[in-house]
């Protein structure tokens, strides 16, 4: 496990930051509150308004994608990519804090199991052949 953390550690940190960006991006889209998507697609000005509303989320999402790409260079793809699913965990926490959506006990169970899986994969490494 220590061996894997040495090999993939930097990548794991990058991927965790990227997962954080993904969930922040999603939170910004929730803030933008454009559930009636179709209503904006009626004219140029509507599409522009939609674009401006969604832009902050897109920017954070894009930054997350760049961080992820750099991170993938620091280890095995099969170890690092699954860490993306931590964005579900961060997402629930963020929406509990900023949107005051309650977290139910069953959600906590799911979060803990996801984290256990990430630790299990993050600590595994079959050796990278370049």
């Amino acid at each position: 496990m220590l061996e894997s953390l040495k090999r993939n550690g930097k990548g794991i940190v990058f991927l965790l930051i990227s997962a954080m960006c993904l969930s922040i991006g999603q939170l910004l889209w929730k803030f933008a509150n454009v559930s009636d998507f179709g209503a904006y697609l009626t004219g140029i000005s509507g599409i522009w308004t939609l674009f401006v509303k969604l832009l902050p989320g897109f920017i954070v999402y894009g930054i997350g994608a760049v961080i992820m790409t750099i991170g993938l260079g620091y280890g095995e793809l099969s170890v690092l990519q699954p860490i993306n699913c931590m964005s579900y965990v961060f997402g629930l926490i963020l929406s509990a804090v900023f949107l005051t959506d309650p977290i139910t006990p069953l959600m906590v169970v799911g979060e803990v199991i996801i984290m256990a899986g990430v630790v299990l994969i993050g600590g595994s490494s079959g050796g990278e052949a370049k």
Partner: protein
Amino acid sequence: MIVVLLLASTLTSSFAGYFLKKSGGSDRKLGIFLSPWFYIGGFLYAASAMAMIYMMKVIPYAVILPLGSLTYVWTMFVSNRLLGEKITKRKIAGMCVIITGVAILAYATQIAGR
């Protein structure tokens, strides 16, 4: 039809990861912007994300989210074939645990009415 879309989008997402990795990563830092693989990977990534968003509208959240984790299963095979990464028992176990966790989380979110 939706099954085909699901398989295609999860497969696309894992190839996106492969191309993004191919774009250089740690060796090139922000030089990744000069790599065509970065744009190919980014495009595939965006395409699969859009397919997922569409599927979330037609299939319950509690079903689509765990199925989306199929991506990591494909990634294990893709990185084994194309990058020579080993498939270990520990990786398979971790994957099963993650998918279970995502399924529970998605179900919990669904019954909470979100």
